[in-house]
């Protein structure tokens, strides 16, 4: 070996070094000249400069393995060839093949890595985080300010509905959906909308199939939000489009 310094940490481990030697010497992996390979491997270890013991130990374990295989092969054969046990090199060969497969695929992966680096993914928007974390924790918030009277009205409604259900004549009429919308709910709806978009047109806050009562409640909710200075509306010109946006602190 010439006078070159070898840095073992250039090799990712003993298998990498072994693999390097096999490639360099164009060795047939299925018929490894173990004596020659062992010698070369040891030469590398000798030439390696100031490697710390931690990093070295793994290389030394492999050296021991190689020497063991070498000595086994050198032992005089006492039995006929058929009775011969497994080739002492077999396990090492399997490991090298396994390692070769992984090493082989990483070349391809480098390309994928470079190509994929050209693509950006958006971080989760604050908007989405805000939409997600909305489970009301406090009972007051959960109940949204409903009163005993609301409860009473709701009960009334249910009982009425139940009675009309058995009424054959009435039940043949088209049912009129009796949605209940609260101003609180609609305020939340408009707030959510302004989380997703910085401004909304006046018409877009009304749901496409909204009935009169829902529209009234939506409008009341908008007025309430304006009163609370949570949103502001603007109109560029007379009869122009009315735009709703989050209140920016200016009047």
């Amino acid at each position, binding site marked *: 070996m010439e006078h070159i310094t070898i840095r073992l940490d250039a090799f990712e481990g003993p298998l990498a070094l072994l693999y390097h030697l096999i490639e360099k010497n164009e060795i047939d992996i299925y018929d490894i000249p173990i004596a020659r390979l062992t010698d070369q491997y040891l030469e590398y270890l000798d030439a390696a400069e100031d490697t710390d013991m931690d990093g070295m130990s793994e290389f030394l374990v492999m050296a021991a393995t190689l020497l063991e295989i070498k000595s086994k092969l050198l032992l005089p054969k006492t039995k006929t060839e058929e009775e011969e046990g497994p080739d002492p090199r077999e396990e090492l060969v399997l490991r090298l093949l396994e390692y070769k497969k992984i090493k082989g695929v990483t070349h391809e992966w480098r390309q994928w890595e470079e190509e994929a680096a050209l693509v*950006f993914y958006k971080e989760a928007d604050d908007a*989405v985080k805000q*939409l997600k974390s909305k489970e009301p924790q406090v009972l007051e918030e959960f109940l*949204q300010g409903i009163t*005993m009277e609301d409860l009473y*009205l709701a009960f009334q409604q249910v009982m009425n509905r139940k009675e009309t259900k058995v009424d054959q004549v009435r039940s043949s009429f088209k049912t009129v959906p009796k949605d*209940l919308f609260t101003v609180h709910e609609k305020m939340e709806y408009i707030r959510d909308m302004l989380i*997703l978009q910085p401004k909304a*047109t006046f018409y877009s806050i009304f749901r496409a199939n909204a009935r009169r009562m829902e529209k009234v409640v939506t409008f009341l909710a908008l007025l309430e939000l304006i009163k609370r200075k949570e949103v502001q509306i603007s109109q560029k010109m007379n009869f122009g489009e009315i735009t709703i946006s989050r209140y920016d602190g200016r009047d």
Partner: protein
Amino acid sequence: MRLSELEAVVESLLFISGEAVPLSAIAQTIEMDKATAKAIIHTLADKYEDEKRGVRIVELEGAYQMCTAAECFEYIRNMYKSPNRQGLTQALLETLAIVAYKQPITRAQIEEIRGVSAEHAVSKLVEKKLVCEVGRMDTPGKPIMFGTTNEFLRYFGFKSVTELPPLEDAADHEGKNENYVIEE
């Protein structure tokens, strides 16, 4: 670089930003003057509008932001707002009212009145401590009976359940159709 390519670049810039991007930053990035950059952005914005796409571009004081189309809002909200995240829904309100007035009551009886499954509603109300188990009915299967809790009373400010508004008054409220609540 062709115009359509610049348009694609602008699209990617607005997409990845997630917030409003100043016109000057866009112009600088695509190495064009502001007027050209602005024209490209507006072309893109118009295209979104004309094709009724799921995203739109809005202008905010000389900056541009990509956002979702208002028409898609309901769906986005539905995806991120699972029902158990919402507050008091109509189903919960009705179920709570039935329990309050008919207690003790079993889940089957609630379902009988409302005509739909009460499983989710009851368990949600139990979770919120507005309703609790108060015993078991002495019928086959011994179904659980539910009643309102002290939390319920505390919230509504009643000393006892006997103070609920009486049912006879129903007629008075009939015509008002006040099925919405205005908050304070």
